[in-house]
């Protein structure tokens, strides 16, 4: 009996190894159960609650919540803020990652750190900074007032705050991607006589398109869902400076639960859609990376 064990151990060391590194079945069930329970309590139940509350008085009441002028205005403002913030950060993110991935220059590391700043700073603080800068008591406030320019408690402030908090998404996604791909393909294009634009459109952009789209999707989700920073600079003027997340809060505070959850369900749907697109992109990126690696080997 002892001998046999010794032999089998010698013959199949891999299997022994696997058995040693795997937990017993009951342990696996418990660990998995805890994870699933956690997921259920903190993700699935709240999501379900949003939709059940929104539809509590029927589909008619649900739709009616959107027909309200204030709700429509909030949706428009959110679309406007995202519509400006996403393209702005797309262009900025491309330029920054190009610069950082392709060139070595003094202050390069500082720039990388600065790009991460919005992730490090609490959104409320970043909103507050704008108030301190552009508000009536702020540094530029009196000058702005003289020239009749209102930023705080107005649309420009909301757009600025949104741009700030969504600033890192595209650049963060592209910098490692472009660093990994290197600049040889671009050099090759240049040597073959392509202009800067031709190189960008025909070589650089196709190489980063999935990563870029991924960054844009995340950037958009955050732009539409941002609460803290926007809340500070908005002033909560109904029908004027309320975005969708702020409008949800107001409705909730007014005990208009159906309205609050109906509008919130929009954000939830956006989140679900983002997740689906994100997973599809991740799958796509992984599949292409695997192809490159497999063929290179």
């Amino acid at each position, binding site marked *: 009996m002892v001998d046999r064990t010794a032999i089998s151990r010698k013959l199949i060391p891999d299997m022994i190894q696997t058995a040693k590194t795997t937990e017993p079945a009951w342990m696996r069930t418990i660990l998995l159960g805890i994870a699933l329970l956690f997921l259920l309590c903190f993700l699935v139940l709240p999501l379900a609650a949003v939709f059940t509350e929104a539809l509590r008085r029927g589909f008619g009441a649900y739709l009616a919540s959107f027909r309200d002028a204030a709700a429509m205005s909030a949706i428009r403002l959110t679309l406007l803020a995202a519509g400006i913030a996403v393209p702005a950060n797309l262009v900025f993110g491309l330029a920054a990652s190009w610069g950082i991935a392709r060139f070595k220059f003094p202050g390069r590391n500082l720039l990388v750190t600065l790009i991460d700043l919005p992730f490090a700073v609490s959104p409320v603080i970043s909103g507050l900074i704008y108030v301190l800068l552009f508000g009536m008591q702020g540094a530029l406030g009196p000058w702005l007032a003289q020239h009749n320019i209102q930023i705080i408690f107005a649309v420009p402030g909301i757009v600025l705050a949104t741009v700030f908090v969504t600033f890192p998404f595209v650049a963060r996604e592209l910098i490692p991607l472009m660093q990994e791909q290197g600049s040889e393909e671009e050099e090759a294009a*240049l040597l073959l006589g392509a*202009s800067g634009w031709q190189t960008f459109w025909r070589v650089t952009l196709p190489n980063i398109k999935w990563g870029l789209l991924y960054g844009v999707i995340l950037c958009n989700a955050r732009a539409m869902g941002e609460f803290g920073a926007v809340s500070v600079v908005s002033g909560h003027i109904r029908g004027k400076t309320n975005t969708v997340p702020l409008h949800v809060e107001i409705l909730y505070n007014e005990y208009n639960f159906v309205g609050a959850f109906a509008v919130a369900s929009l954000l939830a749907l956006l989140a679900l859609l983002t997740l689906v697109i994100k997973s599809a992109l991740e799958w796509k990126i992984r599949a292409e990376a695997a192809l490159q690696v497999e*063929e290179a080997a």
Partner: protein
Amino acid sequence: MSIEVRNVSKTFGGYVALRNVSLCVGNGELVALLGPSGSGKTTLLRIIAGLEVPDAADGSAVIVAGEEISARNARERRVGFVFQHYALFRYMTVFENIAFGLRVRPREERPAKAGIRERVNRLLELIQLDGLAHRYPAQLSGGQRQRVALARALAIEPKVLLLDEPFGALDAKVRQELRRWLRRLHDEIHVTSVLVTHDQDEALEVADRIVVMNQARIEQTGTPEEVFHNPASQFVMEFLGHVNLFHGRVESGKAVVSNDASTGAPIFVRPFDLEIHREARGAAPMRARVRRIQSAGPSAKVELAGDNGQPILVEMSHDRLRELSLRRDDAVFVNPREAKVFLDDYSI
């Protein structure tokens, strides 16, 4: 078309990559830049291509086909460049990759669609990949990819062709096949070419002339035969294959190796320029003991230890090995052949 590089230096921060280097490549020649990594050979190639800008200095110039091109950027130089890791456009098919250089031309210089197709097809034939025009780079083997990269570089009818370690990423067998193929191709199309490599066999086999580089300078320029048989310096000698280092003195034009390794001038002898005998012969034979016999390969290699434990490597034919019937730990005598013994900077 000829290439001339005059007094070019390049520093990266505090690091000197090239120190006042001058180089001439004749029309239709295939020249190999050979050296260890960090010797500056790739930097020199990238300066010719316009991918790096040399340090500003008086008398510094890069001249291709009689024209000074230092002021032109990489896009305007029309050089063909082949990268070590292919650098094929991954989202384009083989056909599109090769056609790229023609398609990006301004409208008035661009060939018509049919003209582009014809030229790409001709190049595909040249690189023997006719059937694979619609594959993507990821679907090709390393050797096939590098041939596509070469066709892509040739498509723009470059004035010169620059190859940066083109076979460095390939396995040994493919590398050998491909470098013979490259040599045949060069004999066919005669485009002036510069090939960067750290593999001395590759340089010796492929190039018309070899430029040996070391520490940002050119050590020697010459035909493969010249640099191999008449190396200009200890570095070139050591870089172009294994050498045994002895010490001794020079007596009336002959090297006399002393058994005491600590005295005298250094003498370098290639493994195949040493002979093994059972009995003492010649002026000053060295006593040695056989440590290892390695007879797999085109020639037999015998590792010995000298009197003071110094390692000696001798290469001989299999016939000679059989004749000697050596065994491990046999005591033998080693003689340098009369032919070639090199002293530090001059040969005897």
